[in-house]
């Protein structure tokens, strides 16, 4: 279970359909809170970096990674091998690339050669297009069409050396309606590497659907983990309750969470 921290510059934000962004606070606090509350990994994506053409914020990465003792994936604005090296030196464990990979697919291969495929996550934003009856890969904060079919692009990324796919639904982003299960199925069927689902979680029981119905190996969400206290713990309690093999720390109390027969929190 991997919370996704969406950052615009140095502000943590909540994202709604990739159009509206609500600032919600301090990055360092967000990370410390997640690490204490039993998350498995953290993904931090700077969604403005590629669009506005700036590099990853190394100073920020350095300060937030100091006490981050779970894997930290950094994405946003990484487009050269030097960026990768600098991001790792600042404290990241894995890197996520999106726009740079689409503009230059060989960059995936170069990243793989530099750090092994396990350190390279290719992040994909997908939107359902009625006219072409397919999920299309989008860039520019979900606004610019690439003409690429999502499943084909994910498959290609895997061939080029990606170690994981992080799939985000532009349609469901911030909707709280749950993941786009069809999108997840399409992606998980097109690759052999682990797939992390993102986009649309409104309640903790949406999380398990990505695994039980969507065929994914990991679940991510941004907005819901940002305001509710103990939301990451409630999320794990739910996943465990429905029988998913998820790590539960003995340091954290899970007993106070009750669920109905559908796994919905009471």
């Amino acid at each position, binding site marked *: 279970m991997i919370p996704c921290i969406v950052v615009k510059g140095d502000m943590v934000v909540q994202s709604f359909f990739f159009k509206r962004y609500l600032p919600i606070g301090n990055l360092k606090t967000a990370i410390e809170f997640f690490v204490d509350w039993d998350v*498995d990994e953290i993904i931090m994506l700077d969604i403005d970096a590629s669009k506005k053409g700036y590099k990853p914020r190394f100073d920020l990465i350095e300060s937030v*990674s100091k006490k981050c*003792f779970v*894997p930290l994936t950094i994405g946003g604005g990484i487009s050269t091998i030097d960026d990768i090296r600098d991001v790792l030196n600042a404290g990241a*464990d*894995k890197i996520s690339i999106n726009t740079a990979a689409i503009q230059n697919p060989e960059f995936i291969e170069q990243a793989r050669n*530099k750090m*092994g495929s396990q350190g390279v996550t290719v992040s994909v934003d997908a939107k359902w297009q009625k006219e072409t009856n397919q999920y299309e890969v989008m860039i520019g904060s979900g606004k610019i069409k690439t003409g690429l079919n999502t499943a084909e692009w994910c498959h290609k990324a895997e061939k080029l050396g990606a170690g994981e796919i992080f799939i985000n639904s532009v349609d469901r982003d911030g909707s709280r309606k749950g993941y786009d299960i069809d999108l997840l199925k399409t992606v998980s069927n097109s690759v052999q*590497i682990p797939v992390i689902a993102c986009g649309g979680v409104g309640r903790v029981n949406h999380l398990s659907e990505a695994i039980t119905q969507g065929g994914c190996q990991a679940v991510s969400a941004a907005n819901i983990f940002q305001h509710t206290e103990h939301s990451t713990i409630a999320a794990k309690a739910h996943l465990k309750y429905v029988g998913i093999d998820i790590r539960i*720390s003995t340091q954290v109390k899970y007993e106070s969470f009750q669920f109905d027969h559908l796994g919905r929190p009471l």
Partner: protein
Amino acid sequence: MSITIVDYGSGNLKSVFNALYHLAPHENIFISDKANEILNAERLILPGVGYFKDAMENLKKKNLIQPLNEAVLERKTPILAICLGMQLLFEKSSEGGDQKGLGWIEGHIEKISAKAPHRVPHMGWNDVHFSGDKIFDGLGDAKPFYFVHSYHACCPKKYVTGTSWHSYDFPVSVRKGHIHGMQFHPEKSHHSGLHVLKNFIEQSKRGASS
């Protein structure tokens, strides 16, 4: 006392540094790629994120193999090798064609041959079952740690201190005297990981019994 993290251009140095500093802020923690600093280190950490071939080439280019051999094999400097670092301890790996490793522990590295639904890379948290080595003292019989790798070690059982299951059992923790290797990332495994690092720091103190 001090801990020296070997910088050979392929490790997540900062993460390792952050974890060690959090546990032992009073120790001198260095990141180094200088032969004499490695030779004189009191304890060594060999981190690892990357590609076996790249890593061995970097070690050669930076002329670190000879000082490492001398520090570890002659001076018996305690060393903890992590992830790719652990794989380098062995004689060879099939990653990137047949590649020679440091050869300090008998055995070789091969690709994980996982069967559906298990995927490669082996990524995420998984339980490590301990076989009684004191490096895992205080953690019971098994605890989850964070893994991210596509290859695993094959070596004589006597060196294995921990195994994990991902389609099948394989060694994820090894020890040959003062040489420790861990396939998982203790610096990224929160409580269990920090505990193991603490054990290494305490147990490798000058004068501590081995």
